[in-house]
């Protein structure tokens, strides 16, 4: 039995320490805002934030978490609320709001990882250029974040809108 912090909550976990975080989140903790894509850290569909850093849940055993908190898309509103000093997560995270405003997804399965990666980027770089966004989603992690539908143009627009919403401190 170990304890991990997921979306602001301490969670007890029975899974063996070598179990990838992906399966623990989905099957043991019922946190579904993380998706199986390749199991090989090649696509980014399973990305979560570990502390402030994007990692691939499909290849990260829970023994490697080192006590750092895990944030999935489900926990983005909470993360935003606590960053704004609010108690409750009443609003969406600006990245989620921007993804709705810009109608970013096609099928949407890759967008869980895309939103996590863009959140990581914007927390470190509030006014990214096109180039910064492209690099974040292509070369900064263990692999590019892949979208088969080809929603990259919408993602670029979504990321810029999210940056604006974050600067304004606004969301839904």
């Amino acid at each position, binding site marked *: 039995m170990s304890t991990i912090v997921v979306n602001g909550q301490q969670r007890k976990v029975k899974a063996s320490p070598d179990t990838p975080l992906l399966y623990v989140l989905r099957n043991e903790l019922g946190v579904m805002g993380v*998706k199986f894509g390749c199991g090989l850290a090649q696509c980014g569909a399973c990305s979560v934030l570990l502390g402030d850093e994007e990692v691939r849940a499909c290849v990260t055993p829970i023994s490697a978490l080192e006590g750092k908190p895990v944030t999935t898309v489900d926990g983005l509103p909470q993360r935003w609320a606590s960053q704004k000093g609010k108690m409750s997560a009443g609003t*969406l995270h600006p990245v989620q709001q921007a993804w*709705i405003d810009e109608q970013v997804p096609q*099928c949407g399965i890759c967008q869980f990882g895309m939103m996590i990666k863009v959140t990581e980027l914007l927390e470190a770089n509030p006014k990214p250029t096109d180039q910064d966004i*492209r690099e974040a989603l292509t070369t900064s992690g263990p692999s590019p974040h892949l979208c088969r539908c080809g929603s990259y*143009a919408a993602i670029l627009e979504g990321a810029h809108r999210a940056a604006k919403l974050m600067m304004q401190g606004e969301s839904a």
Partner: protein
Amino acid sequence: MIRSPSKSEAKIIYDINVHGARLMGVSRRGFLTAGGTLAAVFAMGGRSAVARVNASKANLHAHSAATVNGWIEILSDNTVLLRTGKCDFGQSTIYTAYRQIVAEELCVPLEAMTEVVSGDTDRTPDGGGTFGLLRYGQNLRKVAALMREASLELAARRLAVPRANLSVREGVISGATKAISYGELLAGEDLHLVIPISGDLTMPMGLRVDADPPLKPVKDYTIIGKPVFNPSIAPKVTGKTVWVGDVTLPGMLHARTIHPATLGSTLIAPGKLDGKQFPGARLVRIGNLLAVVSPDEWEAVQAAQSVADGCEWSKWEGLPPSERLEDHLRMMATEDPTPVRDGRANKGNASSVKTTRELRASYLMPYHKHAPISPMVSLADYREDGSVWLHTHSQNPQHLRRMIALMLGSDEDKVVVRTYPGAGHYGRSNGGSAGSEDEAVLLSRELRRPVRVQWMRSDDMQWSTQSPAMISDIRIALDDAGRMAAYVASHIGPGMQDDRLVGALLAGMPVIPAPSPATTYGFQSTVLNMSDTWVYGTVPAVLEQAKGGAHPGQHEATDVVGLRSHSMRTPIQFQQNCPREIAISEAAMLAGKDPLQFRLDHVSDPRFVAILERLRTEAKWEDRPSPSPQAKSHGSDPVKGQGVSIMLRDNGYWACAAQVTVIPASGEVKVERMTIVADVGIVINPLQLRRQIQAGCLMGVSQALHEELSFDKGAVTAKDWTGYPILTMAEMPELKVVITDNPTVGIYGQGSESANALASPAIAAAVMDATGKPIRRIPLKPEYVRAAIKLHA
């Protein structure tokens, strides 16, 4: 309207003919204080509609679509429920365009369209594959028009105003100073509009409405053309959507299938399952279908890998390796019995046109994978009573239901398929199956527990179907003025679709007929149609032919799977349009003409003239012959080029320009800018259409630059994203999409296809423009570009 023989004066049975449909039902106004509906149900034309509806409604235990209340239901609270057997694959059409079309025909506000139920065989009608949504969407448009007309008939009686004096607007029917809302009209009513249909619910094409009601004039549209948001996006990005992989059932086991070593191997001996290392896991074998199950998913993953490493499979070498693909297709052209199909635009005696200048060239299109970002996953629950509930992501759940029933030897009414959002797979399941569904059912039946089969990345790359290759021989003869005098094309490739269930094949269970020249079942034909619509109407002589055949490995033995084909986004037309458009650009080069102007000189349809002229401006096209005056085929300095392509599909007119940079020495191609101009007719939702076209265009750039399936003599050798790379965001070109709304043509525009097929020929032409060398093979990988330059040095 006839008086009921019942004692109650208030009970009235309606039976009104409405443009070929029958409005039937019972009024209980005065008895009921709440509720009331008008629902569209359906009945086969020429049979007793009443008997059929009553029979299906009585048969409550049959999980059949015949028991559902049809396409559209208007409720007494003025809301409208929409049901469709089609599914959403990310295009959003069923949540946006379909709601807009129905609201428009019913003349209700869009907000009244509160619910869309889709793709569940026990809850939705019509069936058929999810493709050509707006073409086959005419079903819903017609049903909505019939519902409106039926409501007007009812209102005429209720308000005692002649039908001709009534009109409907914003959900209110009015005329001669009287008015009534749909809700008021239907309160206390239990009405069905019985709509004549033809077709077969569980066959690949599904049902079709056989009525022609008056449709709302395009000039009166108020909802079609609006940039309506897709309501399925907010729940997806907030994590509230239940995706196919998220569905669980009590007692569920996780399974991983261990697929054979090759596409034709049989199992000699399974690997050992180490019970000490994997205490919760169990090995299941059904013929050549082998799987490991466990209540713990991670244990199933590890145990399956361990067993797979120890499996012994028979050797099979029934495929031509991918580097011998061209030879195989040439052999197929002469040896396969599948007949040649002629193009519809063939005219004149193209083969005998003799000129002094002509292009003769062959073009090779590779195998492509649909390559969904998440591999397929399905959950099956085989129950003691022999019924099966299958939870999956399918573009054609009704035909999947039929194939599952066939596999099990059971009645179709024993099978229910429920669908959920999943990773887009662009046509792979438009015949029902994308992989994993049948395996889940067989394992659940074997174990009498719900079983969830999650394919791994390698299963999806190696065991799913693929979009087939094509080789095209093209001859273009130019006259003395440099105009096309004749166009001759011969396209050779395997048939486009094999919907047989792969798990059933491995398990030795019954499946639908294998593709052949003779079969008339669904899309299971080896015949290759001429699918690329001819657009150069001024060319005097045209001969287009298509020669199909069996897929590689198919004829080796009955239990061999082989390299199965399946249609993929813009199927067949992708493979035929790309060589045609590259050849047209080469012919322009031969004629010394600007390739955009060369197209303008040969098209006959004013819609093409309009979009090509628009493209010239929007793309900042350089009006000049190709190759570029700066073209170079050597050196490490970047050279620039431009290329153009056009396509006519589903009455949509498309033009595309690509601007690229090429490093001749390395063969590296960078796509700098893509411009698409589309005249698709009536634009239902400009916002969603733009997103579809942008995304489709980038998928096309991916296909142009990277995509090619590799295989050896036995198996697909691409196992993951390193073996089948796709476009990354860093490679995204500048993108410009121009949509020209053209309501005068009266046809709804489609955007989910075509856009992906335009990039390859435009980019190839741009590389030719930059280097001055013919490019006759995609993808434009550096090694192929280098080889093309060397070949024509």
